């Protein structure tokens, strides 16, 4: 219907062009890592000791730390293990110069800190308008407060997050009690420390990386924001506590559209969790009854990355969880009161069976109004090909294009930029860093470089973007749901951190509208409960929406 409606408005030549583009993705990737000035090399710290965390890092994030309107890049890094020091490596903050290039401002920003970083969660926990950064680590996690002057200060200890050593992975900021303050959820993997490393071996002689079964699980943490710059550990009282968890990914959703944010957590070799917000400061795990805990065969899979998105434009969020090789990606669609894994019939299942997925996210790559699905793949075992001939250590990332009819097609090899070149992929994030209205990709690899892929539309599709700022709600408006009506299709997006794997994408939301120059209606459900509606907005630009204060168009995206 949408296609027909849009075609009827087009001159014949354009219609013909659109028809000819039926099989082409409609966009092109360019690897701009080097021209953009991003020279990053991840350090897993591997020295031969085969420490478990070496295989898992690290993440990345898009954030506008200086509020100049251009999305900057944060790349998390590992470090050499104690006793095996070779080089000093730190995370890297790249400032977006607004001209396609970036400048490494790590030191200047005060982030030149050596730590074994895994993931990142960006959120304005103190509502000062400047995004703060939580780095999850092997050891002590670090919270960096944005001073508003393009610098960060480490407030880990003063915030009450100190003295908590763990093996943290993904994390996200969200306002679970809707008090207008961002709280913090942190995933932990297993109880591991260099001192308590276990010897695992495939041949009985040489040490190899252990699987998570070799270690005890560790509970995820939930920290309540007191509003005074400090946090309170509410893991136990909120019902989040579960010492059997081996969590790697977390995503925010409003599963029952109650306005109260829920969480879905991907666990490795343990059942996934769906923490349903009980609207009283506690959560209840409903993954089993919701059908998200196990695979359809009743097996706990090796969940890695996770994302939530309304990929079928049904208004209800679907869930995707990447799993180990020989396990399909789980692609769940809400069917009645529980989720149904549609990966096998959607075309995602079989295509993902021989790859080990980490970072994953729903995003509308070709701006046709349907959320596509990107996956970063890469194995953890360098010798995997010796055991399974059809599975490599470096694996091609995947880009599943959504045809709007419930099926997906991997077009990684068709988008250019050597995107499908095999990599040991881990983190994955998106943002419109060049402000051309479409979403660009940032991909990190284990013990390798990071990649920045610029997305350029070829079909003339355009988008409309919204930058939300809460007033009564949290300043980042995390948890706000934006619904957009255009061409008879209802799209919905949630402002969210977390998702993917160890990474965070930009907070502004982007809607593809094909070639429409106007949308019919947009509604914003703020976390505070307030709903706002705007009509007949022009596309091809971004809007600043401030809770209760209306909407202001930007000049362009």
């Amino acid at each position: 219907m949408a296609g027909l409606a849009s075609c009827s408005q087009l001159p014949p030549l354009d219609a013909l062009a659109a028809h000819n583009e039926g099989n082409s993705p409609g966009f092109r990737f360019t690897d701009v890592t080097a021209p953009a000035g991003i020279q990053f090399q991840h350090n897993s710290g591997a020295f031969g000791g085969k420490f478990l965390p070496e295989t898992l890092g690290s993440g990345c994030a898009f954030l506008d730390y200086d509020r100049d309107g251009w999305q900057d890049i944060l790349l998390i890094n590992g470090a050499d293990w104690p006793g095996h020091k070779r080089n000093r490596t730190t995370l890297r903050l790249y400032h977006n110069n607004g001209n396609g290039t970036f400048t490494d401002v790590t030191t200047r920003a005060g982030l030149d800190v050596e730590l074994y970083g895994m993931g990142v969660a960006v959120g304005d926990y103190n509502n000062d308008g400047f995004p703060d950064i939580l780095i999850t680590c092997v050891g002590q996690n670090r919270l960096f407060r944005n001073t508003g002057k393009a610098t960060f200060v480490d407030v880990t200890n003063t915030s009450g997050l100190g003295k908590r050593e763990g093996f943290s992975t993904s994390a996200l900021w969200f306002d679970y009690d809707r008090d207008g303050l961002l709280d913090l959820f942190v995933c932990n993997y297993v109880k591991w420390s260099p001192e308590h490393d276990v010897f695992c071996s495939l041949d009985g002689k040489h040490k190899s990386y252990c699987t998570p079964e070799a270690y005890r699980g560790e509970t995820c943490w939930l920290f309540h924001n007191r509003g005074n710059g400090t946090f309170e550990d509410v893991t136990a009282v909120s019902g989040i506590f579960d010492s059997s968890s081996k969590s790697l990914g977390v995503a925010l959703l409003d599963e029952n559209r109650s306005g109260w944010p829920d969480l879905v957590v991907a666990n490795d070799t343990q059942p996934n969790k769906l923490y349903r917000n009980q609207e009283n400061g506690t959560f209840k795990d409903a993954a089993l009854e919701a059908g998200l805990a196990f695979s359809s065969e009743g097996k706990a899979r090796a969940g890695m990355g996770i994302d939530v998105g309304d990929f079928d434009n049904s208004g209800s969020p679907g869930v995707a969880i990447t799993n180990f090789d020989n396990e399909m990606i789980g692609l769940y669609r809400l069917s009645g009161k529980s989720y149904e894994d549609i990966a096998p019939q959607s075309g995602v299942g079989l295509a993902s069976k021989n790859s080990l997925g980490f970072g994953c996210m729903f995003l509308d790559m070709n701006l046709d109004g349907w959320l596509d699905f990107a996956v970063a793949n890469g194995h953890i075992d360098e010798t995997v090909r010796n055991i399974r001939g059809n599975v490599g250590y470096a694996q091609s990332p995947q880009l599943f294009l959504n045809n709007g009819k419930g099926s997906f097609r991997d077009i990684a090899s068709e988008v250019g930029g050597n995107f499908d070149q095999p990599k040991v992929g881990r983190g994955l994030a998106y943002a419109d860093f060049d402000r051309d209205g479409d979403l660009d990709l940032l991909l990190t690899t284990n013990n390798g470089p990071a990649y920045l892929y610029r997305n350029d539309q070829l079909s003339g599709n355009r988008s409309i973007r919204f930058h939300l700022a809460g007033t009564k709600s949290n300043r980042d408006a995390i948890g706000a749901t934006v619904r957009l009506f255009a061409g008879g299709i209802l799209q919905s997006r949630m402002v969210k951190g977390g998702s993917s794997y160890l990474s965070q994408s930009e907070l502004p939301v982007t809607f593809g509208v094909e070639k429409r120059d106007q949308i019919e209606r947009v509604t914003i459900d703020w976390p505070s409960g307030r709903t706002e509606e705007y009509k007949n907005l022009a596309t091809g630009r971004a809007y600043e929406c401030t809770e209760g204060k209306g909407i202001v168009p930007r000049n362009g995206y």
Partner: protein
Amino acid sequence: MIRFIITAFSHIDGFLSRPTLALTNDDPALYARGVPRANSRERSPTLGLLLGLLVTLSAVVAYSAYITWQVDGLRRLQTDMVDRNRKDSLQLLRIQNDLSLLAVGMRDMISGDEPYPLTAWSSQFQRIRTDLDDAIRLESGFASGTRTPEQNAFLTREFAQFWDAVDRVFSLARDGKEKEARDQIQLSLQERQATLSSTVSRLLVQNSESQEQAGQRIVQIYDRVQREVYVFLAATLLAILLTSLSLIRWNRRLFARLAEISERRSDLAQKLIATQESTLRYISRELHDEFGQILTAIGSMLRRAGTHAPEGSSLRADLQEVLQTVQTTLESVRSLSQALHPVMLDEAGLETTLDWYIPTVERQTGIAISYEKQGQPFRVEGVAGVHVYRVLQEALNNVARHSGAKEAWVRLRFLPNTLELEVEDHGTGIPERQNKRGIGLVAMRERSELMGGQIIFSSTVKGGTLVHLSVPREKAESYGKEDHSVACG
């Protein structure tokens, strides 16, 4: 064919008692005269074969039913036992997994290395409990029938007591009595968990055993079915063998009977023809020799008597008239004798006889006959000559009586190795009925066979009949020459 031969056979005694030929008589009533029909003496094999077919079909149906029953049994066994068992085991494994998660949880609670109070674990335990309840519910559905009520009761009681103990532990923890709660875990909860775990393990072993038993039963069923397949195949082969043997036996008897009949028929035909020939020859000779002599003597006497009668007297005229009559009678007798059996055949041979006979027929019937001879003539003597002559006689007879033709062609060919006789007309052809049943044609065929020759009746292009007789030269020259008895009976 058989019937025809029997008909011919049945005429023998009648034929012998009467000098006139009655070969075309085909009265069915004559079957009753002591020559039984061949097929009434032997029982028909149809009934036996039908019975065999029925038995074979019944065996196939019975076997199909048996196999279906066995397969059904197998399916039932697999669905009811194996699948059920597998599903039950899956649920037991789920229960086992939940129990081990509880064990891990209890271990973590006791170890005290988490910065949380024991109550933190309550949601974890609650989640496991929900899953356990679900698993137990499903499991009991799959296990119904294979588990004793005592086992069920024990399991239910143990789980109830375990959760009761869990509730008490968390109650203590909520009251801040963490140490007591930890003691309870160590004293009772872990023990109960271990008991439950070993019970579930036993059930899993039990399932595994019954799985094994079911597997053995399946193997037994397969073995039985395999055995039955062999038995069935053997029985089917036996049935096929018996049927085939029976068919072969019947066929052999049938062929033997046919051969016998054929031999008898041939015998009969030979006797018939021989009798006919000897009778005709006898009558012909009697007419020629006896009546001819008498009439000649009467003629001589009449002539002598005539000389004693005065010239011009009425007596002399009367005697002359009687003499004329005697002369005519003598010629008639000679003519009849010649017709019945041309003495010329015996004395002058076939070729000369035909030279005489064909114009005679032409004269008698008014049919224009073109007679043509080819090749270097050789002597055709004795019985062979008689047979060829009779064939020609019958063929021309047919032309005259049935064809309606006014013209006929007779060709006699003396080929190097064969004597050929052809009689052709352009009349109406041989009627179908006569072709099948006419005694004349049969006699012609018999005669040709007696000579080792071949006779073919065919239609000419112009619609008439062509009778083609071919006799090997050696037979034509020698057949019946030495063995006169064959011809003379």
